């Protein structure tokens, strides 16, 4: 029997949902609006919502002061690079844990997750020293490795969950059909796990794109991604809200667009296996 929902209840629930949605979205909207204001309008009190003098000068200024595209390129290389490298390591690991578990598999999974519970700053000094001594400071390759490592537990966990959904008999069939381990993974497992792998990929690109702690601490200029680019606008010479907003908008726009176009895949991936 379908549940009966009164009109009144429907109205309240809808209103609450919209309110939460708007509250969550508002900071992004505000950043976007501020990026088109003059610095004076940006700090005006009371704040102006829509009726101010719209200008694009912040964007021009930001682009002329710092090279957006080099930061953008760094972000792309670091987020895609760390995700792909992570995937190459995570697919075989998750395969092993999903299809050939031992008594300790659950412990290993928990241990990997526990590394995410430690505050990142706890590992900053040793990592910083390692980077300095190996000449990896301010290098893309260094950031690719570090971001891969911090996201690896999540990648493995997500893939492990997807792989668990694949019937073991199909892989056994491949084995009987003469597939070697690598062929089994390439021809059978991976194609079947494509939705899961795709959403893992997307989520990790987003996570690495937005990662600020390590990127800020381990880069200066050459390898600096967009997070550093934003941070450079909250500088000692005073806060320039309009320019900071313009920089932020430019930094989050690409990932927002990627997320928008892949939201179906993301949602499907994240709820994969929830309903059979």
């Amino acid at each position, binding site marked *: 029997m379908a549940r009966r929902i009164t009109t009144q209840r429907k109205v309240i629930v809808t209103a609450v949902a919209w309110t939460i949605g708007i509250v969550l979205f508002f900071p992004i909207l505000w950043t976007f609006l501020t990026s088109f204001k003059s610095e004076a309008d940006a700090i005006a009190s009371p704040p102006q919502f829509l009726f101010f003098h719209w200008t694009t000068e912040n964007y021009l200024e930001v682009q002329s002061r710092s090279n957006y595209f080099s930061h953008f390129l760094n972000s792309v290389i670091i987020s895609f690079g760390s995700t792909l490298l992570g995937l190459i390591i995570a697919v075989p690991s998750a395969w092993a844990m999903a299809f050939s578990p031992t008594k300790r598999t659950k412990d290993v999974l928990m241990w990997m997750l526990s590394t995410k519970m430690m505050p990142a700053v706890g590992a900053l000094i040793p990592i910083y020293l390692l980077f300095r001594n190996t000449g990896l400071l301010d290098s893309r390759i260094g950031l690719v490795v570090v971001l891969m490592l911090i996201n690896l537990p999540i990648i493995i966990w997500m893939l492990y969950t997807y792989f668990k959904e694949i019937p073991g*008999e199909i892989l056994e069939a491949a084995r*009987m*059909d003469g597939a070697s381990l690598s062929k089994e993974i390439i021809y059978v497992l991976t194609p079947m796990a494509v939705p899961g792998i795709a959403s893992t990929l997307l989520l990790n690109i987003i996570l690495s794109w937005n990662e600020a702690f390590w990127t800020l601490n381990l880069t200066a200029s050459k390898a600096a991604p967009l997070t550093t680019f934003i941070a450079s606008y909250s500088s000692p010479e005073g806060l320039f809200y309009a320019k900071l907003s313009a920089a932020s908008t430019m930094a989050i726009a690409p990932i927002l667009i990627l997320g928008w176009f892949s939201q179906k895949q993301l949602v499907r991936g994240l709820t994969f296996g929830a309903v059979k």
Partner: protein
Amino acid sequence: MGSITLQKVSKVFGEAKVIPSIDLEIKDGEFVVFVGPSGCGKSTLLRLIAGLEDVSGGKIVIDGKDATESAPSERRLAMVFQSYALYPHMSVRSNIAFPLKMAGMAKPEIDKKVADAARVLNLTDYLDRKPRALSGGQRQRVAIGRAIVRQPSAFLFDEPLSNLDAALRVNMRLEISELHQQLKTTMIYVTHDQVEAMTMADKIVVLNRGNIEQVGSPMELYSKPRNLFVAGFIGSPKMNFVPQGSQTLGVRPEHIQLSMESGEWKGKVVVAEHLGSDTFLHVNVEGIGQMTARGDGSFPAKAGDTVYLTADKARIHRFNEQGLAI
């Protein structure tokens, strides 16, 4: 060639001894059925032969060569799984071609073999479909197709028909038997259904708790069961067991004469099942308990009637205290 020999094969999972120790000889071209109740180790035994599980002890010899340590792909065996285990992202054609592709066969040769297999199994019209667009019976045929293209030395079937509906099961049973007659390749077939075992096998291996209870042709098992377990497992409806002193008498329902007037045992019909061709009566016999008897389709008894049962003396089985046939 496809002879398989098991020598003292055992399998232990943690603390559980699933298979204590099994010796078995399977000759080339034989249709062997492993049958037994669920949890008797029959699927495990098949998986040991396939190489999907490692043995804990003993030796597996395939075609005269020790294959105990060989990988599944090196044993030249093909397996048909209960869930069909088709590759869902591949077309029927690619599914059937997969083992040939793995063997590194040339494309034209693969195409020819796939076409041949599809013709034999009536799958020609479905070659470009994905498995999800097929019915259960068609999927099963694709799984069989994938097994036959590589011309294995033996086929392993793991309860292949249990996901099909009753009518289709009878059809596929027939198809598999025909296939065996055509190919004359060794087949090992696992089932819990004794009807499948009786109808298809050259040789039945009855398993119970990881041990072989008896090996023999269907009729041998039916007419000379070695012990109570085999006697009770083979035959449908089940054999009746009547305690007599320290011994147990076994009487099959079809070896009981039914009468409304007189006979050896008197009892009251609890349930009467009229199948048309036969009538099965479940009778509460005084001093013995419930017994099942088969009469012909026209036998008029109904629930509550008093009937008389007489066992065919020549076909009574006797078992001693240990449950072994005397």
